């Protein structure tokens, strides 16, 4: 039998329906791959093989009786930010300890109700704060991609898989699952997708329920999938999305059949290319990638338009006020009183201080401090309020632009994957990873990253498409055109598999 883990989500679906293999066989292939490969990559923080096999067996019954659901028997990874009923959930922070929720996130439940099989919980930056998966309490995730050295041989440098959904991107790229859940607050789906040659879509704010997902910054957080192909992303989002009465910010709109728009092409589509994304220090190869994207879309019948989003340069600083402010409040509940870690002190204040000092990692502490500062009396107007005003202006930029274009094309990141440790000592350099992605969160828009090429060192690069609110369909059909033109980018060598 061929290696089932190399299949895409849609190929696996077709194979199951055609009874070429069973859901159990498919799941077992992935469990074996995790067994052999996870030690080197650290993508999973908690594989759940028994749970997976039980779900797969149930899927086989349904497949047999012809009652297959949309994702029947398809093995998926679940980011550890998603609460899982009866299964440890930590947001990759020490402060949650061995917390076991008594509830399942809405997005997770949607997947399991559709027949999805959960292989385990995936690593991420602690509380989703990071762009390289180096802040996890469970240690770094290693990208399956390796740079090609000057000698033409793979370097031994351990590359980052991006973050915060680094476990998700690495697991999908390394065939340790067919697709994975992820979340995106400032780029945490799209940036890791770009760095690992995978597809990642952050839908419009309000498209997916946030209920049961550990909160980072409530007004920016959105769930979405990381997958091997555009079609797979369409399949996943269709199931993950939908209105949820338990999340006041979730939007009550019908979820279209995203797969149905794939292949419709981009003839006549107006594609905007925002000037402000041509930032200093952008590498020539990223510029070339962007030009390639423009050329592919033009060749497919789209029209290209130079546009301006004048407040783009304020997006990143404003983001690093709004997101930490919300985080400082969202993370106040981790106080050692009801669940998770508690370090007892001699009085209440000491217990709070010791618990939170020990439970939170450095980056999380840094953001809590920033957030607390910008909300403090006397600073609120100068920081938080001003950042919210910037946010309004950013939204207005986009609103104006949508009068002349239907979708926008930008690079996803300014540079390809870097090695672990390269940026972790310099928070500002790390924050710049989000420069092309945060505006989309600030404006609440949908954005997708599609693999579009390889860097000179043989590592993936992605292009980002930005859409109108709730117009994920245009993103999918445009992304399909890019994927068709650029081809797929599989990791050349499965060096991480042991034994």
């Amino acid at each position: 039998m061929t290696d089932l883990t190399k299949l895409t989500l849609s190929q696996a679906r077709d194979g199951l329906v055609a009874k070429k293999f069973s859901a159990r066989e498919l799941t077992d292939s992935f469990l074996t791959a995790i067994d052999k490969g996870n030690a080197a990559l650290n993508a999973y923080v908690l594989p759940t093989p028994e749970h997976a096999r039980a779900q797969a067996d149930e899927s086989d019954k349904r497949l047999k009786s012809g009652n297959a659901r949309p994702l029947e028997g398809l093995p998926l990874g679940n980011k550890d930010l998603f609460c899982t009923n009866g299964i440890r959930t930590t947001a990759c922070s020490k402060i949650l300890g061995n917390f076991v929720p008594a509830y399942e996130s809405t997005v997770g439940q949607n997947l399991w109700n559709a027949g999805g099989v959960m292989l385990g919980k995936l690593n991420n930056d602690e509380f989703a704060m990071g762009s390289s998966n180096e802040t996890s309490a469970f240690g770094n995730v290693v990208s399956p991609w390796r740079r090609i050295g000057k000698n033409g041989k793979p370097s031994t440098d351990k590359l980052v898989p991006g973050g915060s959904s680094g476990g998700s991107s690495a697991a999908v790229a390394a065939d340790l699952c067919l697709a994975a859940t992820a979340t995106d607050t400032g780029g945490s789906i799209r940036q890791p997708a770009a760095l690992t040659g995978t597809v990642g879509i952050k839908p419009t704010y309000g498209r997916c329920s946030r209920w049961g997902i550990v909160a980072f910054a409530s007004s920016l957080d959105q769930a979405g999938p990381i997958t091997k192909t555009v079609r797979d992303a369409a399949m996943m989002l269709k199931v993950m999305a939908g209105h949820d009465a338990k999340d006041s910010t979730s939007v009550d709109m019908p979820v279209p059949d995203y797969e149905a728009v794939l292949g419709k092409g981009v003839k006549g589509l107006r594609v905007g290319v925002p000037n402000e994304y041509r930032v200093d220090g952008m590498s020539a190869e990223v510029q070339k990638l962007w030009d390639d994207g423009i050329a592919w879309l033009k060749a497919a019948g789209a029209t290209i338009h130079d546009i301006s989003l004048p407040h783009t340069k304020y997006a990143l600083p404003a983001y690093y006020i709004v997101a930490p402010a919300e985080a400082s409040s969202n993370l106040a509940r981790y106080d050692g009183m009801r669940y998770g870690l508690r370090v007892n002190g001699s009085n209440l204040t000491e217990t709070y201080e010791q618990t939170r000092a020990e439970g939170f990692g450095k980056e999380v502490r840094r953001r809590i401090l920033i957030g607390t500062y910008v909300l403090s009396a006397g600073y609120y107007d100068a920081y938080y309020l001003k950042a919210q005003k910037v946010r309004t202006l950013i939204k207005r930029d986009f609103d104006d632009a949508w009068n002349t274009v239907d979708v926008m094309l930008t690079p996803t990141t300014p540079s390809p994957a870097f090695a672990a440790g390269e940026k972790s000592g310099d928070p500002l350099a790390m924050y710049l990873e989000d420069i092309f992605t945060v505006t989309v969160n600030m404006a609440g828009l949908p954005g997708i990253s599609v693999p579009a090429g390889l860097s000179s060192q043989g590592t993936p690069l992605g292009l980002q498409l930005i859409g109108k609110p709730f117009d994920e369909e245009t993103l999918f059909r445009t992304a399909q055109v890019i994927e068709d033109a650029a081809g797929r980018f599989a990791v050349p060598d499965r060096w991480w598999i042991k034994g």
Partner: protein
Amino acid sequence: MSSSKSEAAAKPSNLISGDTGDWEVVIGLEVHAQVASNAKLFSGASTEYGAEPNSHVSLVDAAMPGMLPVINRECVAQAIRTGLGLNAQVNLKSIFDRKNYFYPDLPQGYQISQYKQPVVGEGKIEIDVDGEALTVGVERLHLEQDAGKSLHDQHPDYSYVDLNRSGVALMEIVSKPDMRSAKQAQAYVTKLRTILRYLGTCDGDMEKGNLRADVNVSVRKPGTELGTRCEIKNVNSIRFIGQAIEVEARRQIEIIEDGGKIDQETRLFDPARGETRSMRSKEEAHDYRYFPDPDLLPLELKQDYVDGLQQHLPELPDEKRSRFMKDFGLSAYDANVLVAERPSADYFEQVAQGRDGKLAANWVINELFGRLNKEGKDIAASPMSADQLGSIVDLISSNAISGKIAKDLFEIVWSEGGDPATIVEARGMKQVTDTGALEKAVDDIIAANPDKVEQAKAKPSMLGWFVGQVMKGTGGKANPAAVNEILKQKLGI
């Protein structure tokens, strides 16, 4: 505390005399009223009082990871009804903010409250103190979550937390600093409580902590700028509100007269010691880092919705009092007594319906309330229904029974129950108005007492003796007025 726009001159009767002259006390109140609702403000957990600790706690109330608040629409409706009942501006857009601070009985690490844009803006409450009317301004009303309860007396080394109250909806109703005496403040809270109970938006039960007040007190020489205020937290009875204001005003006056100055601070009232003491100073005050709660959308209301609530608002005490005075000819005093509690007013109205309103009011206030008071009973627990009392009033109005018999009848119905008219028939309590029967009784007395007849002719006031005899002879059932008439006729006086 900002000064009111139009400052009336201080009333001498409200002033407190100190060593350096008269002082005026300025009072503003922040009343926390628990919204009458089955479920909490942002979760479906029950609000039932007195349950086992931590038995009414949802995942949201316990602030489990990933949990989100969803507004309880009924709590919003209750806040709007209250605003309308206070003649206040209802804001069609309001915002829920987070008030951040750490405490074990605050699981989220923040309280969801309304800070800059409350659901209800300015309104007013009319109060009456010793017959003098006063309008107290309402600054705002906002919705917020209650915290849980810390229990410090359950274990030698640890404190326990009960989250049953965590997330219960409160209305914070902030007055303007318009009150100038403890009595006025007490009248304000009493009136507010009455309005809330009429509206059914808060049960006003202060013993359960469902209504409590933070009292802001400052003192000044009349006509001068406002003094520095102290806030006395969580005073939970109307009596204590009065006491707290009086001792706090005294304390402040003494400090100032001794050459000291008042520090702005939060204080606690200790009823056992009859004093207030410092809880935390301004420097120790929290920085709450308010910001709009990103988990909740702005609360947006349609005018039609507010209008609909307005239409279904019950009649409020002030309107009811005016109507009682107009429709039933009641005195302001009687009307006030009757409208103080909606069940009393409803009871009275049922008794008065189609009957003599004044007579009904007399019987409700003097006999019924008197009796309920004596037995420590609430009107809801009255053994006598409004229909029963109405029937007694009917029997009096139709001259079927005398006033004296009516009191006996009241006793019987109170303790034994039953239909008053049937009791009157069955026990022969009916007043004799049949002229034939009365004439016979009069004739009998005249015939038996010729000497008295002579005396009466000389001294007409002797008529009373004859009336008494007839009444005695009929067991009190004779109609005294009819007897009087017949006697005058027969005796020719």
